[in-house]
């Protein structure tokens, strides 16, 4: 088990390295560099930039260095000092901007994942055990719809319904009166009161997908020889289902974290934008629109790395659950 975890972590290193390269490329993609922006800013303020000053700035930011050195400077600053560079639209260090938003995004995503599990599990099991029942058809239909409706559309419809019929806005994470106050119980409750909408919206697509996967897997398992063998030795049907096929069918719960999590993170960006939540999503969108590339690249980097770590955790859970995985990589 430890060997498996160790190997899994080793495998993560090239993955994170590749992510950092992609993020760096994103930062470099738009024409011009950071300096162009600074110069533009300075000239907008009426300052004249002479060549000597320009060269000095270039040297200061290391922009006269080859690409690979620039990358090294960028990544080592992040790893050593947690310095992600400067956001020019906010005129603040990127790390400072992100500190407030990324935890909120992560919390939102993890909550949505948990909700997905809690909802998908009983429905998927019911749907498979009672195949072709009314409940199964309802669950399958919901599953199909959940996959076909884009998250932002669900969010829009939810907002529209609650605005038109209940006369209240479900957008945002905090009511206006708490927006600038310090954290207290009231603020926390208010936050929770708002949080269910994005969680519900985010969980919808993942839930639908997971119901389908769980149902298909469980249906496969229910007719395996070992189930019949267990029945033949006199196990009660309910206990048999829970102990044998369900445990195998649980595997997708952990292994699909690998694809649900990236999906949830993607969904978070767009749902947060629609529901005007104050998380990393809208920050990324604005940064991209304004070509604030250090901010955008950093968000892509952090969000991707977090996803990979999430996948790692799911793999470890999977190994704990499934002896075949655990023992194969001893």
């Amino acid at each position, binding site marked *: 088990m430890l060997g498996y975890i160790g*190997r*899994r972590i080793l*495998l993560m290193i090239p993955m994170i390295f590749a992510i950092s390269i992609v993020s760096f490329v994103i930062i470099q993609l738009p024409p011009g560099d950071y300096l162009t922006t600074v110069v533009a800013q300075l000239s907008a303020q009426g300052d004249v930039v002479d060549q000597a000053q320009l060269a000095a700035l270039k040297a200061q930011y290391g922009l006269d260095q080859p690409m690979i050195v620039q990358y090294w400077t960028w990544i080592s600053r992040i790893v050593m000092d947690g310095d992600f560079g400067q956001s020019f639209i906010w005129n603040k260090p990127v790390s400072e901007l992100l500190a407030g938003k990324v935890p909120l995004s992560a919390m939102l995503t993890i909550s949505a994942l948990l909700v997905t599990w809690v909802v998908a599990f009983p429905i998927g099991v019911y749907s498979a055990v009672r195949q072709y029942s009314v409940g199964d058809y309802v669950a399958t239909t919901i599953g199909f719809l959940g996959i076909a409706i884009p998250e932002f559309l669900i969010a829009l419809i939810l907002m529209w319904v609650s605005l038109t019929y209940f006369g209240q806005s479900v957008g945002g994470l905090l009511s206006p009166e708490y927006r600038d106050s310090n954290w207290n119980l009231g603020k926390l409750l208010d936050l929770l009161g708002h949080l269910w909408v994005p969680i519900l919206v985010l969980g919808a697509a993942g839930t639908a997908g997971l119901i389908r996967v769980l149902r298909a897997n469980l249906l496969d398992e229910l*007719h*395996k*020889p*070992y189930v*019949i*063998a*267990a*029945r*033949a*030795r*006199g*196990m*009660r*049907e309910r206990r048999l289902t829970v*102990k*044998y096929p369900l*445990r*195998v069918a649980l595997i997708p719960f952990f292994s699909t974290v690998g694809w649900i999590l990236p999906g949830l993170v993607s969904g978070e960006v767009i749902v947060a934008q629609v529901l005007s939540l104050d998380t990393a999503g809208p920050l990324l969108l604005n940064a991209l629109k304004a070509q604030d590339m250090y901010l955008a690249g950093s968000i892509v980097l952090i969000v991707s790395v977090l996803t990979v770590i999430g996948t790692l955790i799911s793999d470890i859970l999977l190994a704990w659950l*499934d*002896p*075949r995985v655990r*023992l194969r*990589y001893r």
Partner: protein
Amino acid sequence: MNQTPQTREIVQGGARPRGRRARRGAVVPPTVPAADDGTALLRIKDLRTHFVTREGVVRAVDGVNLEVPKGKTVCVVGESGCGKSVTARSILQLVERPGRLVGGSISWRPDENASWVDLAGLDPHGEHLRRVRGAEIGMVFQEPMASLSPMYTIGDQLMEAIQLHLPMSKAEARDRAITQLRRVGIPQPERRMDAYSFQLSGGMCQRVMIAIALSCDPALLIADEPTTALDVTTQARILDLLKDLQEQTGMAMVFITHDLGVVAEIADEVTVMYLGKVAEHGSVEEIFDHPKHPYTQALLRSIPAMRGDRARQRLAAIQGMVPHPQHRPAGCPFHTRCDHVIAGLCDTIDPPMASFGSGHLALCHLYDENGATKEAVSRTLGEPAGAAAARQAAVRETVKEAVAAVPARPAAAVVTRERGRHAGVPAREERPLLDVSGLSMEFPIKRGMFGRTTGTIRAVNNVNLTIRPGETVGLVGESGCGKTTLGRCLARVLKPTSGQIHYETSSGSVVDLAGLRNRDLAPYRREIRVVFQDPFSSLNPRMTLLQLVGEPLRTNRLAAGTELQDQVAEMLRQVGLRPEYMHRYPHAFSGGERQRINIARALITRPRLVIADEAVSALDVSVRAQILNLLGDLQDELNLTYLFISHDLSVVEHLCDRVTVMYLGSIVETADTSSLYSTPHHPYTEALLNAVPLPNPHRRRQRHEHGLPDDLPDAANLPSGCLFHTRCPHVRQDRCPTEVPDLRETGSKHLSACHFAETLTLAGAAGHTR
């Protein structure tokens, strides 16, 4: 139509009254004489299990009667699709949707003091049936590995079975579990408790399954093809184990199998099933010595038994194949394939049950109710076996005539074959067609997430082998011994790692096939052909027969257009398929017919050497006999040389002139068939031969004699010295573990790789007299 009331009866009727009424024998004739009445445990009457599918109702089990006496073994035997497994599963209501018990009763009484219970009338999810399952009736299945959950240790599953029915604490259950594992012959049971099914071999898994099934001392064990997926040596050990356990516990067994050898080995009573109905029932001696039903007679004739008789005889195959249960013929289901069919009777009216005394029953129109041969049919029937023999002889005559009639054939070839087979010596020392020397094939083992090579498996290890023109060489061994890999190297599907394959071309020159590049192999690809094992996966389902059989002609540019069509038509006719069917796709054909297509594809290029890799292993007994006959006839007709790879020793003995035995990638023995079967020179051959169950209840194997331990050594980590020393009963610690034995001449044309071949006296197959 009349099934509906019966269904209702099952749902409403109590178990007991119906058991009584059935015993009065008002509807169904008694299956067992009154004297045995008190000892019966299980009494199945008129069982019907149907599958309702979109295409219609499949009557998988349709009116089966079966009685299991206390402490006895009842074998249910039949070809695939005859409903024997469904019968077994119906007993404990384990048939899955869309299958359903629609009629009949299953009376069960675990001991004389208990009252009869109709298992068919119990709620499938109810407490009562749950108690019967496991506690009173245990069950073992065909695929031991898949029958154990990979998610829990075997100890877990065994303890669970114990605690389900016995009031025991965890510690007590664990003790009992360990005792059970020891009882079924699992070494180091304390350690194995924590093993997972995928860490054990198939034989070990089946032992665990038996331990689970017997953990609560049931009165009856239902074993559904428990040894079919296992190697022959493992099968022998499992059969021994079951018989030992039966002696210890006095349990009864219902043993489902398709293998008549196993039946003769283990049965007290035999029920022969055909298309969902019982064809014949009787004691094992009666069934094998005096079979009454034409189906039983034909089945027994169609198995190549190890008779020790050197002349190769044509097998008496049953014509046609088992129809799909959905298209069961009217009247007697067997009438479409029966040699004694009476038109107007057998094809319209259900046959009556004829009783021959002492519980011997047959469902056939040829006999009246008291077992006497009916006047009207005595002419057609005669003495069944004699008539068949006479007909067979007639067929053989036609073969000879036909062969002699071939114009372009040199008559000498035919004579040589006849002599070769009957005298057991080749007529002249010819140069070998294929001379293999030092052939090795290694596969890298990839492990872990990075796919690193962590070792190699030597699937074929320094093999020397010669095949002379016109002979049939058999290659036998347990699964994983490398026989298929060797065959694939010779066909150059695989490129051997080292060694030579010297092939004498038709022009007389010798080439080394092992060294040739793919492109240069083309001329030899049509001279060396392969018949594959799996009749389903070996034919591309997307090509018609014409495309399939014509493909080698097309790729080798041997023929095209109408000429190609004509050749395909001719070839199809030769393998016994109608040429009109050349535009059909393989899905329109049954397994046996597909194997004919496979043979046609192999032979269309007029090859000289045919490598048949388990070519009949996937087929039913009756169809297998047809294909074996076809292979034999075509060999005579087309002057072919065969390399026949098989795990089935009786088939190999039937077909082959010489036999080579492989173990863990190496050849351990090579000799003429009769010499090898009567006086093996290697302990492994001895063990193999003695593990084969003979279809003769009077010549049962001595239990535990020449038995081998179950587990094959790890192929990636071969034993030192003699490869076989870890399992050899004759091992001597001074030489075997350290010194590698050479394959050397230990007798006339007899090669063996055993240090003590000359000093050991090894037993041959029981059918051979030494």
